């Protein structure tokens, strides 16, 4: 019996200590980690979508509430004076989630550009969604009334040959971005000013 209590006590104390220690480290590194994610994943995508802005989309980022899930929005003032926003959505590809940063011009309701942020697709095949600009450029300038599904499914997007699933993931993410934007536009515009 004593042995039993001993075992339980040691394990409990150890786990509690471990939890406490980790919570401390987590709290200490939280801000730094957020900065790193911004710098290495989001910043290059934002830079690609808004090559020239008169403001700093990264510094002016804000959060809005999308049905209980917080969504990070990057506002950009384009060089021709129009306003745009960029945010990230996800679609499921063949190796898992494909993150897509979607830039939308708020004044004209058209897509500025899209960029793939994260993916774990097969190198050389699905990864072309990120590396090969001709696929992503299909989205540029399209109005938000476009259906971004594959052409085979009655949409307007050409799939990359040999990488149908990845192409689908990107189009799912783009359609999702469209829906979120249409739903939350008043909120986004309010926050931007």
């Amino acid at each position: 019996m004593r042995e039993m209590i001993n075992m339980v006590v040691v394990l409990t104390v150890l786990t509690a200590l471990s939890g406490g220690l980790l919570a401390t480290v987590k709290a200490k590194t939280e801000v730094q980690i957020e900065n790193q994610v911004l710098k290495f994943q989001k910043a290059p995508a934002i830079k690609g979508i808004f090559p020239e802005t008169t403001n700093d989309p990264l510094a002016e980022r804000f959060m809005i509430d999308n049905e209980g899930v917080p969504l990070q929005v990057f506002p950009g003032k384009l060089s021709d004076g129009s306003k745009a926003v960029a945010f990230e959505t996800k679609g499921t590809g063949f190796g898992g989630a494909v993150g897509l940063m979607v830039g939308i011009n708020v004044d004209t309701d058209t897509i500025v550009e899209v960029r793939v942020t994260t993916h774990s697709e097969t190198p050389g095949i699905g990864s072309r969604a990120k590396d090969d600009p001709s696929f992503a450029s299909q989205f540029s300038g399209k109005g938000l009334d476009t259906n971004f599904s594959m052409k085979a499914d009655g949409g307007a997007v050409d799939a990359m040959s040999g990488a149908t699933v990845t192409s689908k993931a990107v189009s799912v993410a783009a359609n999702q971005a469209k829906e979120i934007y249409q739903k939350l536009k008043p909120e986004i515009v309010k926050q931007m000013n």
Partner: protein
Amino acid sequence: MAQSLAKEFTKGLWAEIPPFRLVLGLCPTLAVTKSVENGIGMGIATTFVLVFSNLLISLLRNIIPSKVRIACYIVIVATFVTIVELLMQAYTYELFLKLGIFIPLIVVNCIVLGRAEAFANKNGPLPSVADGLGIGMGFTLSLAALGAVRELLGNGTLTIWGGTPIFEMAEGFLPFRFMLEAPGAFIGLGLMLCLMNLIGKK
């Protein structure tokens, strides 16, 4: 005392060098050694976990009841792995992305649990730290060596840190791309093991 510490340290560098002599921890060895840089990064992360978990387990070796010792080791190791994961995410984010899932998987690296059970469990804190450091350094060296072979043959370059390669193969060298893929990892490690056997025999 100093002499025996040195002995514990150096045995990890040759006599018991993982993963060659102790055939343990193969998964990270094969998976992350696409370049020298990844190999070293993984090696250092593992060394950190090894040293601290060895130290703590050795300090607690008289308190931990022997029936639940494995569970206790797992908690201790997992805690340090998470710390490494958070630190790498905060300070070496690019490396963190490259190593990906293999950082949390240090927790099931048999080397770490193996050292806890075989060494730290029976020895004092100082030798345990020396043992962890030695085995960890040996592991780092092996990963770096395999990474160097694969990068050199598969890509024609050697990169230690940052983007610029410190060594490039002569022009006209056609890289064996398959060395960077899965089969190259197995075959590269197999041939290096054969080389170790050849040298060790003398």
